[in-house]
């Protein structure tokens, strides 16, 4: 009995291994109920990570993304429908509202199913373009799976994506190859700062519509090579995430366990399961989630200089004076599986503090001072500029694949009070004049002494003359 209880407890503990930072209610929209079985391993993985999954079809009457005006689910997983539309509850506007209220969406596409116009117009809003050809898919004659698509070359085998930038941490790297069958390629626009590419197609790929018989289909393809993104990530200003996953089939059980072979390679197992875990981990806010904790600033002058004892310090005053020395600190944490952990930016990167009024007067790198159990304390010591006004201490950290950190503290900076100006004897430029005055006074005192001293002599003279 006891061992059973212990086993149950242990079992419960192991269930909750990676929770989302924002919530665990996940809604899955799938048109075909029978399709659910094809993705059973994928859903099992999600449930093992603590998500409460609700399955609905698009035309279900009980489907509603919102409950009393607030999103009813923290996350949404959309599978491609067979019919033309996603139903009245999943229009583009509703999805945009859903994202604006902070929930995350993972949209899976497939070239086998048609893409509803609502979806493609929604993606256009996000500056992601899809090929206007219905049924077009990504084809690659050099990176295909010889076991399943030796003639059509529509199953792409892709190496693990890695971040080429030094200052961006890679969240999607896996060991081995990822199989992407029947994928829909996306082209990201340049205008949006919120878009990032997760997985690009190889340089030898292109978008092709197999139903198009005419020969000029290849003369003007929609996109080629690394222009084509297979998995695109969008993070809104409120840090809600929208991922477009180019191949819904890559999430199926068959592809989780398939063995594939490149034209000139050897047979190996796919890493689709691992990749799915990474992509859902990022989209549903298990990875790359930052939080700014307590912000403290105080005057680092006079009696308070160089103390860090919070009980005696006047923390977060609302008024400073020009040219005051100020100490600023902020705590940053990163979500790690099920708790907040200290955050360290990549080696080439810095979290910066802006001291600005209309435009920044200082832009300083925040130095990580110490680590607590849940956060890293970043500090900066600086001198307020020689300008009075209303200043903002602004920490703005926006990086690809990380939630946005925006913390603004507003303080008043006043000018010198009438008794705070430096005294004239402290100004070295005034010493000649001070010397001049005292020399004059000394000369005057000497003159008065002489005058008074020689007076009796004159009187005597006058008396003598009389």
């Amino acid at each position, binding site marked *: 009995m006891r061992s059973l209880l212990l086993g149950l407890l242990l079992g419960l503990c192991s269930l909750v291994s990676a929770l989302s930072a924002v919530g665990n209610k996940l809604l899955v929209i799938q048109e075909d109920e029978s399709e659910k079985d094809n993705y059973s391993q994928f859903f099992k993985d999600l449930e093992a990570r603590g998500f409460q999954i609700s399955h609905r079809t698009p035309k279900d009457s009980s489907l509603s993304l919102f409950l009393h005006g607030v999103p009813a689910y923290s996350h949404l997983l959309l599978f491609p429908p067979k019919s033309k539309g996603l139903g009245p509850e999943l229009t583009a506007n509703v999805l945009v509202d859903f994202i604006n209220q902070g929930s995350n969406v993972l949209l899976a596409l497939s070239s086998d199913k048609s893409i509803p116009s609502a979806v493609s117009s929604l993606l256009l809003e996000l500056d992601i373009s899809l090929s206007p050809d219905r049924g077009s898919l990504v084809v690659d004659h050099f990176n295909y799976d010889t076991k399943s698509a030796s003639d059509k070359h529509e199953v792409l085998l892709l190496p693990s994506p890695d971040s080429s930038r030094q200052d961006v941490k890679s969240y999607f790297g896996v060991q081995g190859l990822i199989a992407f069958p029947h994928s829909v390629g996306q082209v990201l626009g340049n205008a949006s700062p919120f878009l990032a590419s997760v997985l690009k197609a190889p340089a030898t790929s292109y978008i092709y519509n197999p139903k198009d018989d005419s020969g000029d289909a290849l003369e003007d393809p929609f996109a080629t090579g690394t222009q084509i993104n297979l998995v695109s990530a969008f993070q809104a200003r409120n840090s809600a995430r929208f991922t477009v996953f180019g191949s819904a089939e890559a999430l199926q059980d068959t592809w989780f366990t398939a063995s594939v072979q490149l034209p000139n390679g050897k047979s190996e197992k796919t890493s689709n399961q691992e990749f799915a875990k990474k992509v859902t981990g990022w989209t549903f806010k298990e990875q790359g989630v930052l939080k700014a904790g307590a912000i403290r600033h105080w005057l680092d002058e006079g009696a308070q200089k160089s103390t860090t004892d919070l009980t005696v310090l006047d923390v977060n005053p609302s008024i400073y004076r020009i040219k005051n020395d100020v100490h600023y600190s902020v705590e940053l944490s990163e979500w790690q599986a099920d708790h907040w952990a200290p955050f360290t930016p990549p080696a080439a990167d810095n979290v910066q503090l802006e001291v600005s009024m209309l435009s920044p007067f200082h832009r300083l790198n925040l130095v990580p001072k110490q680590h607590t159990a849940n956060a890293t304390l970043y500090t900066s010591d600086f001198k307020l500029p020689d300008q009075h006004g209303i200043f903002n201490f602004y920490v703005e950290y926006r990086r690809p694949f990380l939630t946005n950190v925006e913390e603004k503290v507003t303080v008043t900076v006043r000018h010198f009070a009438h008794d705070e100006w430096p005294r004239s004897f402290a100004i070295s430029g005034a010493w000649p004049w001070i010397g001049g005055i005292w*020399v004059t006074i000394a000369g005057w005192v000497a003159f008065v002494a002489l005058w008074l001293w020689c007076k009796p002599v*004159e009187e005597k003279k006058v008396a003598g003359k009389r």
Partner: protein
Amino acid sequence: QDIVETIWQNYVDKTPQRVKLLDTFMAFLIVVGVLQFVYCVIGGNFPFNAFLSGFSATVGQFVLTASLRMQTNPENKADFRSISHERAFADFVFGSLILHFFCVNFI
């Protein structure tokens, strides 16, 4: 050349000792004032109020001394019959103290 010498000789002989004392004091004030002004021209007048107060100390003192000289010069006895030398001197001291007070504050 001769004229200057004659004037100087006349001055040395004819002026009373007290007036000469006043004159030396005035000459001293002029020197100090000129020094301050030359420094201002060379080194700039950064604490402007300091320059003003230093320079005006010498100038004001010079003016006060000049008025004392006028009032105590035996040759001017006719113009200042009602003011005794002591009275003139007391005025001089009083005015000088006010001037010093003002300058020390203004600097």
